[in-house]
């Protein structure tokens, strides 16, 4: 006698048999038992219990969430930096446009007036840079020794440049700003210094 195939029995778990298949099952105890076993197997699959997730899964999810937050933070920093550049550039542009307008300072008539305007412009420049650092989050403290060394380098360079072009306003501006910042830093350091200070 030709038995029903395994795949036919697997199908008959949930489908009606053809008349021929039904006749065979009625007369073949072996195939009927196999079909019962297939049905039992399918019912057992449907009744399988849930499995507990290992603790490592949640740990991995937490890591993923932290990493995502960091990525978002980095992206936000870039956006802030870009926004700051736009603001800064916009401010400079607006300042340039305003020069000669109603808010522009009057043209200096003496060297003293010119020097005052130069110092004010330098102060505005430094304030803008400080604001820029705050906005971009790049205002991390630099150790005084490094900053002093950098300022000293600028002072020496601009002093050498001034020997070549003593009346150049841009070089004068940089030189005066660097000297002013260096002196301010030296003053700050000397006030905060411990008896033995080896920052240099």
């Amino acid at each position, binding site marked *: 006698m030709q038995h029903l195939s395994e795949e*036919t029995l697997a199908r008959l778990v949930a489908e009606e048999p053809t008349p021929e298949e039904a006749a065979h099952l009625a007369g073949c105890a072996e195939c009927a038992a196999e079909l019962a076993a297939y049905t039992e197997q399918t019912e057992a699959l449907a009744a399988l219990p849930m*499995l507990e997730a290992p603790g490592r*899964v949640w740990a991995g999810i937490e890591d993923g969430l932290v990493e995502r937050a960091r990525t978002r933070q980095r992206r936000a920093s870039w956006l802030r930096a870009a926004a700051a550049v736009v603001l800064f550039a916009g401010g400079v542009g607006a300042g340039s446009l305003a020069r000669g307008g109603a808010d522009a300072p009057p043209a200096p008539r003496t060297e003293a007036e010119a020097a005052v305007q130069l110092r004010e412009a330098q102060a505005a420049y430094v304030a803008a840079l400080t604001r820029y650092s705050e906005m971009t989050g790049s205002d991390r403290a630099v150790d005084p020794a490094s900053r002093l060394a950098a300022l000293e380098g600028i002072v020496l360079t601009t002093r050498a440049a001034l020997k070549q072009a003593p009346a150049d306003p841009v070089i004068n501006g940089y030189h005066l700003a660097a000297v002013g910042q260096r002196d301010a830093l030296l003053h700050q350091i000397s006030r905060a210094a411990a008896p033995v200070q080896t920052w240099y």
Partner: protein
Amino acid sequence: MSEHELIRRAQEGDPGAIELLYRRHSARVYTVVRRLTGDDASAEDAAQEAWLRALRSLRRFRGQSLFSTWLHRIAVNCALEGERRSHRKREAALPEEVEAETIEGEPLLRRRLERALDSLPSGMRRVIVLHDVEGYTHEEIGVLLGVSEGTCKSQLFKARAKLRAQLRWTREGEGACSI
């Protein structure tokens, strides 16, 4: 806390709510990905990916379906995608709680079933898990796997037969038991 309130808080980024949401649904997600992938390492990867994907999309969840249904679909997709790209070797180990059970009566049957499922070729395992364990229709499985309903049915019958043969073989090895 109600499910609705829990989801609302999780959508706002409340870490406690996110963890509680995970605790409530972690077993369901892990179960389906474990059975679909057939090994622990792939299942852990798929479960993590499913949760991260769900949490990333949580703000867009509007409650038009049950959260558990929505999450289950994401988990199934992650398991299927993960299996396609994963080249990891499968581990023969069974889930811990299955191993910890006694080998008397029903736990033995469960253990044999889990082991037999793991041993199936992945195509067959996906179809039989989705149909016989998770209760998906042939139409739904066809959409998920990108195959016709006819192919899906044919794979299911082959998978049942293969599973039956596997169980018969392990029964001979382990002693008498039902099925």
